[in-house]
């Protein structure tokens, strides 16, 4: 415990970097997921094929290979990336591919007749998407997306592989430094603490989305609905 308090500033910096990594990664992944997920259900065969190629390519590469590839590969095409940039880009590409697949299957789970009857009402394509399909796709999308998010948060520790000073890397440094100075390795203690922190982050994330999910599904199955036109009869039914 002493050790963790002593090194608190360093750990805090690490944690801060991890949070930054995570936030940028989650945002990037979400944007890519939605874009490629929607392309995956597009009318145009070219868009669908593009989305599928992207998804298959990045899902099939282990994340760690992906990180190393982006970090060491980018300079070859004339882009130099710092560890933070390389990590967020490769995480987002990977997260986006997995997320796109989730978004796509979320939309595919909405029965075909829903789209057909929305189209038959003369709604514009974006209106069909926004008012009819997206709200119904959201519910099946949330649980697997939460899983993906915690996976990505945990995966931020891989950024240490290319030298990003994130939480995991700083704790590694603490372990190494202490071992060198005292001859005794605090690995169990420090990594135990690291584990606890990742657990708290991911558990609160899934608790949060669980609540979102419940409130969403409650709203969708609630019998009352919007009390608009007819106050007197609203409570009479079922």
């Amino acid at each position, binding site marked *: 415990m002493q050790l963790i308090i002593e090194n608190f500033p360093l750990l805090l910096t690490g944690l801060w970097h991890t949070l930054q990594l995570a936030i940028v990664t989650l945002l990037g992944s979400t944007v890519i997921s939605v874009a490629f997920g929607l392309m995956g259900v597009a009318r145009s065969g070219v868009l669908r094929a593009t989305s599928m190629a992207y998804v298959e390519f990045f899902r099939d590469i282990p994340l760690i290979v992906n990180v190393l590839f982006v970090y060491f590969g980018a300079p070859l095409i004339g882009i130099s990336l710092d560890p933070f940039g390389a990590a967020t880009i490769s995480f987002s590409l990977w997260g986006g591919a997995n997320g796109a697949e989730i978004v796509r299957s979320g939309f595919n789970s909405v029965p075909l007749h829903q789209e057909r009857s929305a189209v038959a009402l003369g709604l514009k394509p974006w209106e069909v998407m926004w008012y009819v399909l997206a709200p*119904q796709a959201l519910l099946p999308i949330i649980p697997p997306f939460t899983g993906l998010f915690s996976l990505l948060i945990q995966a931020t520790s891989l950024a240490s592989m290319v030298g990003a000073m994130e939480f995991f890397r700083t704790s590694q440094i603490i372990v190494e430094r202490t071992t060198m100075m005292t001859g005794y390795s605090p690995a169990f203690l420090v990594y135990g603490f690291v584990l606890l922190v990742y657990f708290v982050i991911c558990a609160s994330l899934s608790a949060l989305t669980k609540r979102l999910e419940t409130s969403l599904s409650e709203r969708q199955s609630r019998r009352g609905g919007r009390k608009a036109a007819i106050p007197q*009869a609203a409570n009479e039914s079922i």
Partner: protein
Amino acid sequence: MPNSPATAEGPVISVRGVVKKYGNMRALDGVDADVSRGEVVVVIGPSGSGKSTFIRCLNGLERVDGGRVTIDGMPISTRRDWQVARRRIGMVFQDYSLFPHMTVMSNICLAPVRARVGTRAETEERAMEMLERVGLAHKANDFPAALSGGQQQRVAIVRALAMKPEAILFDEPTSALDPETIGEVLAVMKELAREGMTMVVVTHEMGFAREVADRVVFMDKGRIVEIGPPEVIFTSPREDRTKAFLEMIF
């Protein structure tokens, strides 16, 4: 309830030489038909004869592979043409297809409010009136899951009507219903017909066809075999295939 005609003369919907292929199979093989204003056309025929395909071509849910479809004298071809035309040609499906995440009221008001058929307040007021007439005013704020099949189908009809369409297409609107609720849906459709709504109805309800249809269309193998008034089709059809079909179902 139907709009005043944009063009007093001429059919609301007209199809000429329409062909629809699925792979090599011709689901529609050169279909010609006109639907006049205020007319009720009932389409009958064996399973797989192309009835659904035909009716879906009338509002562009199927893209035709040949021939053309004209609405109010205007040829409709592009996606955008169809999207606008569909506001004038309502459709009611076998599986009602209400939007499960919206209340009955929101289901009805979504499209007319988006298309600015009226303001939200006007539309809700009109929706309430129509719901009252089909006996479902007390369900306005319920979600579809709380309604029986027959009730959902009546809401689907109101939803189509809320667009103030010139015609409504029905594809087997009672086939998915429990026998005891079929009557309530047919009653609503009969009343619509009486009020002069232009309707095209695919149905196996021969009683309805006899009573309400101005003309009956018999389809087989992607073609219209025979068109005529119900008295003629049901009692003295010209074609052998029509005879055979009617003998089979009666």
